[in-house]
C-alpha cells in the first residue's frame, strides 16, 4: 500500500494557531455568527415610506451597488480558496470557508432589504455605471478566474488586489461610510444599520486576510510581486474612484448633504494604511509578516457589533 497524501493534522505539526488566518478564523466563529433572517426591517420599511423620491433613489442606488457587489464576490472567490487548498495551506483555507459563508450572508441581507423595505424596485441594473460594470463584470471575475489555470504568486497578488484592496478596501468601505453618513446621521433604518455594522465587522477580517496574503506573497516572492501589486492598483484605482464619481454624477444636488470629496478622502485614508503595511513586507521575513499581522489582527473588533 502506498501513501499519496500527507495530512498535516496527522503529523506533529498539527494546526498552526499562531498564523494570522487561524486567529481570524477564531474570531469569525465568535463574532461572525449572525443571521440575516434575524434582522428586523419593520422600522426601515416605515422610514422608507417617509423619504423623498431623491432620498429613496440614493439609498436604493447604494443598496444596488452592494447587492450586485456581494453577489459578485460570492461567485468569484472560490478559485482563491482552491489555490490555498492546492498549496496545502490548511489554515488559510479554513479561514476562507468563513469568508465565503459571510459573503453569502451579505447577499441575503441586502436582498431582504430590497424585498421587504423597497418592495418592487424594477430593474436594478439601471444603477450600474460604466466603471462599476468594468470592475464587477470584467476585472474581478477575470482576476479570480485566472487562478484556475495560473496560480503563480503574481496572479494571486493581482486577484487579491482586485478583491481585497479595491472591491472591499475602497468600494465597500466607501459604501459603509455612505450608509453611515445617511442612516446614522439622520437616525434612519435601524435594520440596515445593524446589517452594515455586521458587514463592517466581517469585512474588517476579510481585509485583514487580504493584507496578510499580499504581505506574505511580497515577503516570499519579492519585488516581482510588489511591482504587480503597484501596477494593478494603478490600473484599478481610477475605476474605483470612477464608481464614486459616477454615483454622485447622478445627482445635481446629492441628497442628505453627501459630498464626493468626503468619500474619496475616506477611501484614500483606509487604502493608505493597508498598502503601507503591504509595502513594509518588502523588507520583512515571513516570520516578521506573521508577527506584525498578528498584532494588527489583535486590534480588530473582538466583540459582536452592539445592538442598535
Amino acid at each position, binding site marked *: 500500500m502506498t501513501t499519496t497524501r500527507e495530512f498535516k493534522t496527522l503529523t506533529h505539526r498539527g494546526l498552526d494557531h499562531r498564523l494570522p488566518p487561524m486567529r481570524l478564523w477564531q474570531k469569525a466563529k465568535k463574532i461572525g455568527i449572525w443571521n440575516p433572517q434575524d434582522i428586523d426591517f419593520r422600522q426601515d420599511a416605515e422610514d422608507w415610506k417617509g423619504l423623498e423620491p431623491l432620498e429613496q433613489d440614493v439609498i436604493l442606488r447604494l443598496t444596488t451597488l452592494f447587492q450586485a457587489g456581494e453577489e459578485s464576490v460570492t461567485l468569484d472567490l472560490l478559485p482563491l480558496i482552491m489555490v490555498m487548498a492546492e498549496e496545502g495551506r490548511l489554515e488559510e483555507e479554513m479561514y476562507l470557508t468563513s469568508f465565503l459563508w459571510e459573503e453569502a450572508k451579505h447577499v441575503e441581507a441586502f436582498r431582504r432589504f430590497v424585498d421587504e423595505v423597497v418592495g418592487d424596485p424594477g430593474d436594478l441594473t439601471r444603477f450600474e455605471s460604466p466603471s462599476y460594470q468594468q470592475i464587477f463584470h470584467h476585472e474581478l471575475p477575470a482576476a479570480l478566474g485566472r487562478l484556475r489555470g495560473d496560480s503563480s504568486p503574481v496572479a494571486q497578488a493581482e486577484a487579491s488586489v482586485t478583491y481585497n484592496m479595491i472591491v472591499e478596501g475602497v468600494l465597500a468601505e466607501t459604501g459603509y461610510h455612505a450608509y453611515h453618513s445617511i442612516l446614522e446621521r439622520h437616525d434612519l433604518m435601524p435594520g440596515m444599520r445593524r446589517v452594515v455594522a455586521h458587514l463592517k465587522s466581517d469585512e474588517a477580517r476579510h481585509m485583514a486576510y487580504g493584507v496578510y496574503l499580499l504581505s506574505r506573497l511580497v515577503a516570499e516572492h519579492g519585488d516581482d510581486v510588489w511591482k504587480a501589486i503597484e501596477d494593478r492598483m494603478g490600473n484599478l484605482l*481610477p475605476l474605483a474612484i470612477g464608481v464614486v464619481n459616477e454615483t454622485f454624477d447622478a445627482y445635481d444636488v446629492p441628497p442628505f448633504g453627501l459630498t464626493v*470629496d468626503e468619500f474619496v478622502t475616506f477611501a484614500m485614508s483606509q487604502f493608505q494604511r493597508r498598502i*503601507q503595511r503591504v509595502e513594509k513586507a518588502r523588507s520583512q521575513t515571513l516570520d516578521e509578516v506573521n508577527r506584525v499581522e498578528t498584532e494588527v489582527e489583535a486590534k480588530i473588533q473582538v466583540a459582536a457589533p452592539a445592538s442598535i
Partner: protein
Amino acid sequence: MTHDPPPHEVFDDAWVAAWVVELKGSDAYRRAAATWEGSLALAMDASPEDGLAEDRAVFLDLWHGDVRAARVAEGDDLDTADFVLRADAAVWKRVLDGDLQPIFGIMSGKLKLARGSVAKLTPYMAASNELVAAATRVPGRFPAAPV
C-alpha cells in the same frame, strides 16, 4: 563606454520646454486630455542634503489636449493651480522613471495632492499618465547631493 549626463535638470526651464515639445507631439496625450481644462503644478520639495536647496516647481496650463502655457512656477502659480502635486526628489524620480503611476502615488500618500481633489483629478487620470509618459522621454538630471 560612458554616457554623457542629461543636459537639463528636471523641472528647470529647458526641461519644461523639452517636455512641452514631447506633449505637443503626442497623439496619445492629445486624445487622453481632450476634455481637460485647467492647470496643474508639480512641486519638488527642497532637500539640501540631496542638493536641492529650494523648492522647485513647474506649472502647466492645459486645454483640450493642448498646452497653453508651461513654465517654472512663479508668482502665485502654486496658489492658483487647479491641482498641485508635491513630493520629494526621490518620489519624482520614480514617477519620471515610469516606476510609479501617479494615481497609485497619490492614493498611497507618496505624492501629495496639495491642491485640488482626487475625485476631480480622477477623470483626467489617463491624461495624467500620458503627461508622465511624455516626461519620461525627456532626459533630465536630478540634483546631485553635495560632495
